[in-house]
């Protein structure tokens, strides 16, 4: 597993998200109110909405297009909706954030 540096914790607002551009598409990196960090594909399983643009609450995000709620921990849709997005491993070292990009690439392959 290769860890790639993507920036530091303070680059992401609490209860917010930033995007990381990759050849496989955008990854949304979320920071929760209690400073947990999660990375998932920036692509809602419903109609492909940019999850990074949604409202973050607890460890979930509400998609801005049609209000699906996606768990940041599992990538699965919560409530009555069904579907999931891929999650990407994140590591926090001090303030620095790393993601394991090869996980995404190998799955994509």
């Amino acid at each position, binding site marked *: 597993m290769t860890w790639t540096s*993507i920036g530091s914790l303070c680059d*992401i607002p609490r209860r917010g998200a930033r995007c990381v*551009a*990759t050849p496989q598409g955008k990854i949304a990196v979320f920071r929760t109110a*209690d400073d947990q960090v999660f990375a998932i594909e920036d692509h809602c399983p419903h109609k492909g*909405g940019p999850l990074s*643009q949604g409202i*973050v*609450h607890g460890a979930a995000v509400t998609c801005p297009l049609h209000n699906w709620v996606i768990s940041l921990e599992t990538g699965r849709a919560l409530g009555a909706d069904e579907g999931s997005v891929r999650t990407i491993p994140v590591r926090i070292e001090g303030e620095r954030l790393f993601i394991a*990009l090869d996980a995404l690439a190998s799955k994509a392959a």
Partner: protein
Amino acid sequence: MSEKLVIIGNGMAPGRMLEHLLEGAPDRYAVTIFNAEPRVNYDRIMLSPVLSGEKEFEEIVIHGDGWYIKHGITLYKGHRIVAIDRDARTVTSDHGVTESYDRLVIATGSVPFIIPVPGKGLPGVLSYRDLDDVNAMLLAAQSRAKAIVIGGGLLGLEAAAGLKERGMEVTVLHVMPTLMERQLDPAAGYLLQKAVEARGIKVMTRANTKAIVGNGKVEGVELMDGTTIPATLVVMAVGIRPNIALAKDAGLEVNRGIVVDDRMQTSDPAIMALGECAEVGGHVYGLVAPLYEMARVAAAGLTDGEDRRFVHSDTPTKLKVTGIDLYSLGDFADGDDREEIILRDASAGIYKRVVLQDNRIIGTVLFGETADGAWFNDLKKKATDISEMRDTLIFGQAFQGGASSDPLAAVAALADDAEICGCNGVGKGKITGAITGKGLTGLDDVRAHTKASASCGSCTGLVEQLLKLTLGEAYNPAALQPMCGCTSLGHDDVRRLIKAKGLKTIPAIMQELEWKTSCGCAKCRPALNYYLVCDWPDQYADDYQSRFINERVHANIQKDGTYSVVPRMWGGVTSAGELRAIADVVDKFRIPTVKVTGGQRIDMLGIRKEDLPAVWADLGKAGFVSGHAYAKGLRTVKTCVGSDWCRFGTQDSTGLGIRIEKFMWGSWTPAKVKMAVSGCPRNCAEATCKDVGVVCVDSGYEIHFAGAAGLDIKGTEVLGLVKTEDEALEVIVALVQMYREQARYLERIYKWAKRVGTAEIKKQVLDDVEKRRAYFERFVFSQKFAQVDPWSERVSGKDKHEFRPLASVGFAEAAE
């Protein structure tokens, strides 16, 4: 001919007596009431929630004016009886009204005890007894200055909590070593003091007041030990005395109270007394349950019905301060012939003590967890021998006989005669009987039919569980729609509590209103953020993470994740320069679609998020600001060309539209607001299906509102006709401000107006010029903070992170 019944006093006890009387013998008496307070009968125990802002006065009225009219009762409001002539059988009021009686009921209640210290009469010294006192306290609280409450009993603590909620700095002075020492043992008194102090109220025990000091008005309280505590408001809540002066003057037998027998009869056979002024069997009473029992007894006596006698019983005490749970009952003093069982859980702040004598409960003090109070009370009343369950008694009913800790099961396990509502003495069987017998379906029904939970409300949870238990799936609790799954409160309650409790941040709301989730959800957070922006425009820092993406990046998200941009064109008027600038932007950023909107604007669609600041920079150079086409806020004011060009135009509709838009742009509202101004009744700007519309006529400006042309189609309602453009602007602004302050988040004007009623809106923003002005000024104040172009802010670098990726990774390897 019916006999004449005269009642002196219109508090809760005589009010309840009348209800029983009207049930038992509706036509027997011609009833006249003299009330020294200038108002109808209300629930005095709910004054504390009125003081703290959790309830309005209208919500605690028991009998409105209509009730007296319906029952043919004459009510003299603001008449104090000054004399009773027992020989002539007449009473005379301070306004000179004399009324004769066959039967007289004295219910003069009590007067607050004022400690006889120097300065007790200074302006700013209040007691806590009636609505006038509450209003005076609310007025004083506006200063947000310092208040002192003398007396750490039930009333004093409720007053202190209320004043604190209203923003005052409060100190409680209590002469005894622990709070509420008559109802609580020292351990619970200590926990109570900690809980009170945790709310930011200062408590001084063993504080003996020497004098109230001040020059012409209250400036502070001096204690026996020489210290002086500054304050502009002093509330004395040290106890009450039965109000017996009138009865004494009339020669009736009095002691501490007016002496009555167990049928509420005074020493004069034509006169009864009840309520806090009455003394029966050597006791006087201040809690509502025995007073209501007196009402029942007195009504029975007046109708010569059943021979009902008053029997003394202990009444539990509960404190009505939200978030402090306290229950005390009976006798809990130590004694050689007594045993006690105690449970303490320091981390949870729980203390429970049950006092036993001969294996029977004689007293209970519960703090922090009071759900078992009713059960302990039941065991005490029935003098149940508890030796069998002694080991688990203190853990409560749920731990007996292997019953589960499910509250519903606990209620199900209660005996039919177990008391549910202490105030009104209503047992479980009566409630379940009424539910099945009368087909009741909700809490209000139960309150109406049985009076259970209709007084202090602390048994509401139990009654709801009984409804659930009796009706099963058919019980649909409350038509009240909670805001979302994070709370059981509805939007209106939340808005009211934000103001009443002075909540100024989202975490403060979630903490104080006991949100069930740690940081809300996508439904409640934007609503709370709006309410705070609206209510505290100068103090609240907008929480962008609680805004929907469109309002966070000031553009409209599209299905493919790109954005659309709509620059503001005031009143729908544009120019060659503006059009040229738009054309240049479209070319430069290869914007795929350009479209004219229904609100007379130009929409550029398909812009990548990263390009937004650059697009805005170019538009800004041509003088454009954000068109807020994405906002729950003022969108567009559509106009026709009016008297400038049109041969039918009666007024300058274009000019007025531009003026309104320039005045109101940037304001946030509960849902989007679209307006239009038409220059004549031909209405080319389609003003009669807008949230707010103006139709110009020869004689002035007809103001319309509450139209819709979306999911619902609805023509506007006419608010009224005004003569000048200035007046039109003021009315429209006031209307929108009223809507901003009252509506629920995402509720359009037409839905809000349907709830509030056109007449009420008209009254407030058209007829009542003062109120209109106040709304107008609050809007103007709020605009100082709202009217900032979000696009130029972002061109200057605000929220840079929004428009850039955090990183780009992996591309080098991909290229190889």
